[in-house]
């Protein structure tokens, strides 16, 4: 019996050690954040009084996959901000290891590429960790409800990172369209393909 107990404890310890921070899944409530935008102002989801929800995209300057998605992210904001789902872009990158992702360089890119949405820096990476952002770009569609900000989609923006495929499946668009029509997204989880995010510790 004692042996069994030891085995159970050892197994539990092994499991506990292996479980990574999973982050948000579809159905989870997302905690609000307070992050600095490229215009110097601090920004929270709570500040968007009339929004119905948000398209939160973890993205960054240096990653070629993010760069490949840049125009698609701008297009998402242009299409859905007016319908109540603005894009909030968050850079999860640690500028100490990737200088291209410094705050100053984020400001430059946002201006030069005419970002229509906030581009926030997650200096401590705490928000990215809480969301469970794994790669750039990694998208989270969030719906504002009486019970808080509910995550309704987690994953890739679409199923073909290489631009120009007219037949690709646009997961984020489909998810937001469903929510706007009072439905739940049929596909609420996909895999984020892009540059892995390096966390400081």
């Amino acid at each position, binding site marked *: 019996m004692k042996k069994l107990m030891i085995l159970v404890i050892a197994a539990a310890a092994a499991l506990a050690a292996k479980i990574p921070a999973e982050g948000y899944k579809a159905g989870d409530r997302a905690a609000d954040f307070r992050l600095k935008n490229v215009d110097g102002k601090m920004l929270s989801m709570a500040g968007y009084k009339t929004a119905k929800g948000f398209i939160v995209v973890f993205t960054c300057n240096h990653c070629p996959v993010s760069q*490949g998605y840049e125009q698609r992210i701008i297009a998402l904001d242009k299409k859905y901000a007016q319908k109540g789902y603005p894009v909030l872009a968050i850079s999860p990158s640690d500028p100490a290891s990737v200088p291209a992702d410094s705050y100053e360089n984020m400001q430059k890119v946002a201006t030069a590429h005419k970002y229509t949405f906030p581009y926030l820096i997650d200096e401590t990476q705490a928000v990215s960790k809480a969301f469970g952002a794994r790669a750039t770009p990694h998208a989270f569609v969030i719906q504002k409800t009486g019970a808080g900000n509910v995550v309704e989609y987690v994953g*890739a923006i679409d199923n073909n990172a290489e631009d120009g495929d007219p037949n*690709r499946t646009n997961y984020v668009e489909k998810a937001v369209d469903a929510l706007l029509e009072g439905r739940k997204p049929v596909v609420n989880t996909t*895999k984020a393909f892009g540059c892995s995010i390096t966390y400081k510790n």
Partner: protein
Amino acid sequence: MKRFVVTQLLYLLFVWPAFSQTVRPVTASQLESRFRSGKDTVYVVNFWATWCVPCVKELPEFEKFREDHKDQPLKLLLVSMDYESKVKSAVMPFARRQKLKAEILIASRKNEQGFIDAIDKGWSGSLPGTLIVNNAKAVRKFFEKPLTHEELNTLYQTYK
């Protein structure tokens, strides 16, 4: 000027062919049929990209591992997840610079989700990832992390 042309010619004649790498496209199902035809061969398939920093760091480990097992039934495949349109502008120049000698393929996919799931359901999609297949022993293991030369050796000894 003449000397410059001569050096360039010599370079093209001798140095270029040594590093010239063809990078063929491969779908997930073509990879599977290759595994099936391999009999007792152990396939070590590394998924990487030229833009993936930890991948670039680990590639020399794979080259050393391949070099050390030249006479064994082992096949190393380096499957790039770069865009298919970047083969000539990014993947091939990279392979030349890094003097990669292993077979390099480019993941041909119209649908990343389908490709990733076909390789391994548990793969989150992050790079690097390494698949080890030995059909003769029904081995199929996926590792979503960088591997060292020593770790690759241990895995090969375990699954060969």
